[in-house]
C-alpha cells in the first residue's frame, strides 16, 4: 500500500512542478509565439495560439529598422565588463572577509546587502548628475561601473559563501610553502573556488544583461544595450506588439541559450552552502 501512495504522490508532485514551470515559462513562450504572428493576429481576440500564419516578417522589419548587432555588442561588453570588474574587486574582498574576518565583517556584509534594498530611483538624480560632470553619460564604461556597483554586494556574498567552504589549513600550507598573497589567491584559492566563481560570473552576467533601469536612463544611442533595443519598440502609437515581441526574443535569446547550457552549474552555485 505504501508504494501506491508514494506513486500517487510522485505523480502529483510532477504535475505541480510542471504547472509551475509552465506558468513561469508562459510569458516567454507567448512572446516568442507572438513574434511570428502578423500585427493583426498579435492583438486578435480571442488570442490565437498555434494556428496562425507563421511569418518572419517582424524579424526582417526589426533588422531593417535598427542595428541589432550594435545593441547586442553593447550588451555583451557591458554585462561582461561589469562582471569582470566586479570579480576583480570581489575576490580580494571576499578573501579577506572569509579568511581574516574582523569583529565588523558580518556588519559590513549586512550593510553591503542593505544597499540592495534601496530603490534605484532614489539615487538616480545624484548618479545622473555625476555622470554628466564626469562625461560618462551614454558610455559603456559608465554603465559597466554602475552595473558592477549594484551587483557587487551579490558577488561578494556569493564568493564569501564559497570561500568559507575552503579549509583555512590549505591556505596556511600555501603560506608555509612560500606563496605570496597574490600566489596564494592565484594558484590555490581561485582554482579551488572555480565552480563557485563560475556560477557567480554566470548569475552576474544574467543580472547585468537584464538590468533595465540604469541602462535605459543613462544611455541614449551610443552605449544602448538590448534593453534599450526592446524599449524602442514599445511605442504608444501604431501596432507594434509583434515587432516588440520579435525584438524581445532577439534580446533574450543569447542569455536564454547561455542559461540553458549552464543550468547545472547555476543551480549548483545557487544552492551551494545552503545545506550544511
Amino acid at each position, binding site marked *: 500500500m505504501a508504494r501506491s501512495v508514494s506513486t500517487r504522490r510522485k505523480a502529483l508532485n510532477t504535475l505541480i512542478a510542471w504547472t509551475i514551470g509552465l506558468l513561469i515559462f508562459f510569458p516567454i513562450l507567448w512572446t516568442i509565439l507572438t513574434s511570428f504572428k502578423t500585427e493583426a493576429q498579435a492583438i486578435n481576440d480571442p488570442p490565437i495560439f498555434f494556428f496562425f500564419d507563421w511569418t518572419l516578417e517582424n524579424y526582417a522589419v526589426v533588422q531593417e529598422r535598427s542595428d541589432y548587432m550594435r545593441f547586442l555588442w553593447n550588451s555583451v561588453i557591458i554585462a561582461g565588463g561589469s562582471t569582470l570588474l566586479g570579480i576583480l574587486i570581489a575576490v580580494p574582498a571576499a578573501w579577506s572577509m572569509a579568511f581574516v574576518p574582523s569583529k565588523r565583517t558580518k556588519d559590513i556584509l549586512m550593510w553591503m546587502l542593505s544597499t540592495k534594498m534601496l530603490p534605484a530611483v532614489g539615487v538616480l538624480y545624484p548618479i545622473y548628475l555625476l555622470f554628466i560632470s564626469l562625461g560618462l553619460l551614454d558610455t559603456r564604461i559608465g554603465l559597466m561601473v554602475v552595473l558592477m556597483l549594484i551587483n557587487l554586494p551579490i558577488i561578494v556574498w556569493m564568493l564569501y559563501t564559497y570561500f568559507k567552504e575552503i*579549509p583555512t589549513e590549505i591556505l596556511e600550507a600555501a603560506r608555509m610553502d612560500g606563496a605570496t598573497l597574490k600566489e596564494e589567491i592565484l594558484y590555490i584559492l581561485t582554482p579551488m573556488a572555480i565552480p563557485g566563481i563560475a556560477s557567480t560570473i554566470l548569475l552576474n552576467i544574467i543580472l547585468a544583461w537584464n538590468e533595465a533601469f540604469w541602462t535605459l536612463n543613462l544611455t541614449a544611442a551610443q552605449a544602448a544595450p538590448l534593453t534599450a533595443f526592446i524599449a524602442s519598440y514599445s511605442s504608444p502609437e501604431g501596432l507594434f506588439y509583434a515587432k516588440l515581441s520579435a525584438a524581445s526574443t532577439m534580446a533574450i535569446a543569447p542569455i536564454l541559450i547561455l542559461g540553458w547550457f549552464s543550468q547545472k552549474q547555476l543551480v549548483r552555485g545557487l544552492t551551494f552552502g545552503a545545506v550544511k
Partner: protein
Amino acid sequence: MGRIVLEQITKSFGSTQVIPPLDLTIEDGEFTVFVGPSGCGKSTLLRLIAGLEDVSSGRITIDGQDATELAPAKRGLAMVFQSYALYPHMTVRKNIAFPLRMAKMGPAEIEKRVNNAASVLNLTDYLDRRPGQLSGGQRQRVAIGRAIVREPSAFLFDEPLSNLDAALRVGMRLEISELHKRLTTTMIYVTHDQVEAMTMADKIVVLRAGHIEQVGSPLELYKNPRNKFVAGFIGSPKMNFLEGDEAKRHNAHSIGVRPEHIEVSDSKGDWTGVVGVSEHLGSDTFFHIHDTGLAETITVRAGGEVGFRHGDRVHLTPRSDVIHKFDAQGLRI
C-alpha cells in the same frame, strides 16, 4: 641547522591569554614533542613558531636569527597539518613541487627533488594522481613529501596521525621516526597522544593551559614527574593516586603508584580489594580493583596469564621503591 629558541613569548586572543610568558629551547636535530590535553595551547605554540600566528610579545630565534616578525615562508620551516592540507586540484607531483615552484627553482632541479622525495616515501607510482584518489596514509606521505623537498631547517607536525586508523598510525609513527633518524633535522611534533610522545620523542614538553609543566626525555618524565599532572598524563594506564592515611604513612599529601608497579596476589598483600573489570590484551591484563578503601578504583597491570575473575577478592602490594610522593600543591616531594 635548526635551533629554535623561544624567549618570554606570549599569545593572547582578545583579552584571553592562551600562552603566558614561556621560554623554551629546541636543540638542532632534536625530535621534540609537545603533548597535553586538548586546549592546552600546544597547537597554538606550534603555529607561533611557524609564523601562522603572531606572538603578542617575546622573541623567536631560529638559528640565531630573530624570526619573530618573519613571514612563515621566510623562516625555513616546513609544516605537516592534521588534515594534510593537500592542494586538491593538483597532482601529487605538483603538490610536492609547489614549495620549490614558489622558491623559483629551475624545472630540472624540481624534477630531481620531487622524484627523490617520491622514492623515499614510496610515492613514485602515484605521482600523477590527485589527492582525492589516495588513501589516508598516502595523503599523509604526500604532505610529508611536500615538507621534505624544501630541505627545511625544521619540520613542524600538527597532530599528523590523528586522522589515520590505529594500524596505519603505528606504521606512520615508525616512518616518521625513521625519517628523523635519516635526515637528522629538527622536528617539532604536536600530539595529545602520550603513546606517540613516549615512542617518538627525544624531548617531551608537557603543556597545560599554556604553561610548560615539564620538559625532559620520555623516561625522565616517566620516572621523575615533577607534579601530579605530568605523573597522571605520562604512562598508560594512568598512575593511581591515593590520599588520606595511606599517603600520610609516606609523609605526603598524596602518593602515586603506577599500575605496573603493583603486585597482585590471591593470598597476601598490603591492600585488599575486589576485581571489577579485567581488560585482557594477551600480553598484559589490566585489572580494575574496587572496594580497597583507598581510592574508587586502583588499576593494576599484571601478566597476560594472570586470570582473576570479576568479584574475586585480591591482595595488592605496591613496590615501595617507585612510589611517587606529592605535597598539597601536587608538587613532587
